[in-house]
């Protein structure tokens, strides 16, 4: 709802003196020097730490950083390198796979949220707390216990699998498998947040719809499919957007779960990890800037595509 307020063209802000008699809310229009006091400190910080860096990063993307600190302008060299760089492509692919697996948590969250919001259900606060804690905990701290659980020899997961007669893999040192293990932890962390947002959406569905459906003899699963899911599509869409954007930021969990010294990192790294490694471990900041811009463009395109596709499946009532 606020996005419409956001996009609404504002009334002109210049005519504060001349048109004053016409305006009833004149007092709001003439603010004198006050706006500078209110916005000045904030905009100064924004300009220094956010606006200028965008321009500087764009400039850095055309430079090469020597090992001794010399920065030379190299034109499009970094972009030419990017075109043939399979490492960036691999990191992109890893990130996309991670996101795809984390998104599997959304149907799960819809189901759990609908159970949690059943009328008259007891213990909802307790359940919600349990589901939500993984989202709040520090990702690095959480990654450490998953490392222990995923250990190929003495981890509890393989111990449990062995009890079922399954020989579990070395989760965190096998390429491919490590990415799946990482994604499962990402899914585990995101479910609670998704439930919170979807629950807010569920509360917006008028109870009369369910009452009418129940009178017509609709079963619970019919109500879920015919009322809950369609009415919830705006929230589902929103949660999808957030999960995708957050997924492209994958770093903490990867850093904690796999780590810099594990050789499998090269086959598991995300775009942000590659950015970090290039910019701040190898001090190759020119190429790091290019990777940052790649992340910007990909996130922008993916988000724009999702907004276009929403018309096909999201119902706004």
């Amino acid at each position, binding site marked *: 709802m*606020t996005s419409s*307020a956001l996009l609404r063209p*504002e009334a002109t*802000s210049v005519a504060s003196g001349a048109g004053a008699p016409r305006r009833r*809310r004149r007092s*709001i229009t003439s*603010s004198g020097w*006050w706006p500078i006091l*209110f*916005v000045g400190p*904030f905009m100064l*910080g*924004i300009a220094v*730490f*956010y*606006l200028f*860096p*965008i321009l500087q990063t764009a400039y*850095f993307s055309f430079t090469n950083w020597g090992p001794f600190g010399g920065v030379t302008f190299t034109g499009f060299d970094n972009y030419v390198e990017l075109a043939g760089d399979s490492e960036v492509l691999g990191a992109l692919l890893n990130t996309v796979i991670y996101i795809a697996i984390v998104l599997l948590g959304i149907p799960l969250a819809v189901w*759990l949220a609908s*159970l*949690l919001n059943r009328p*008259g259900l*007891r*213990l909802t*606060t307790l359940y*919600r*707390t*349990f589901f*939500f*804690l993984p989202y*709040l905990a*520090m*990702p*690095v*701290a*959480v990654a*450490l*216990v998953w490392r*222990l659980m995923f250990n190929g*020899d*003495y*981890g509890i997961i393989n*111990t449990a699998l062995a009890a079922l007669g399954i020989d579990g893999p070395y989760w965190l040192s096998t390429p491919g498998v490590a990415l799946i293990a990482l994604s499962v932890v990402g899914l585990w962390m995101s*479910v609670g947040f998704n439930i*919170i*947002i979807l629950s*807010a959406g569920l*509360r*917006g569905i008028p109870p009369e719809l369910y009452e009418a459906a129940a009178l017509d003899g609709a079963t619970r699963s019919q109500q879920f499919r015919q009322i809950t899911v369609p009415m919830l599509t705006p929230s589902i869409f929103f949660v999808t957007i*957030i999960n995708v954007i957050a997924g492209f*930021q994958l770093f903490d969990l990867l850093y*904690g779960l796999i*780590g810099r010294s594990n050789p499998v990192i090269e086959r598991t790294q995300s775009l942000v990890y590659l*950015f970090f490694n290039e*910019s*701040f471990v190898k001090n190759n900041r020119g190429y790091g800037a290019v*990777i940052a811009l790649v*992340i*910007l463009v990909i996130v922008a395109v993916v988000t724009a595509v999702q907004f276009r596709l929403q018309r096909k499946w999201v119902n706004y009532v």
Partner: protein
Amino acid sequence: MSELSLGAASSTRRRGGRHGSNVGAHVVLIVGSLVMMFPFVWQVIASLSTTPELTSIPPRLLPSVPHPENFAAVFDQLPFLSQFAVSVLITVLRVAGQLVLCAMAGYAFARLRFPGRNVLFALVLAILMVPPQVFLISQYQIVQGLGWLDTIAGIVAPGLFSAFGAFLLRQFFLGLPDELEEAARLDGANPFQVFWSVMLPLAKPGLSALAVITVLTSWNDLLWPLIVSTKPGVQPLSVGLATLQGQFSTDYPVLMAAALMASAPILILFLLMQRRVIDGLAFSGMK
């Protein structure tokens, strides 16, 4: 936005009855809760075990005797107290800075009229859509240029300013009624007095939502402090844990104790202020 909190309040006691049994729902939710909580339970068990107990094949499910001394060992292996202090300090400073700066800017964008307002706000929105990596290299250069590497100031500085916070609070101020402001102005209050004594108290739900989000992101933040602070004594717990993991990768019990102690403040804060945290996240999620 405000409809959300109303909806939440009214739905908390919707009438039960004649909806059929909820046994199935409880079974699913209990199983789900066990899965979600198991890693935390395992973390507690591991933090009270010994390394041989955890690394035997198969591992012992419970330690023969609990070893709380692992928690004391954390203080030997990690500058835990100073890193804890750093985490607290950067979180408090960021929250305070954002609340003051974003509230003032958000109010001005919502209610004051001045030339260039729309352009400035458009810039803020643009920043909101840019991934953090695009700022990081340059922010590092700036912090380095100021001589703030390995300092609290360096870790905190960029995070004092939040485009998201200004946007969130602007939206909140837009939703507040005009009449009170009008009345205060007729009584001769200047814009700052109106903002401070009339609007800010009304904006509490928005401010607490921003505080919740900032506490969460600041406490858990890894990438930025990892880059700008290489001195263990000036690193927050997130960086300390990530580093410890590389050095003592086999000393699981102490690692688990440290991890629990690092997560605990946020988890305790959540348990104490559950309603506020959930409303805050849901509120900002509805933007």
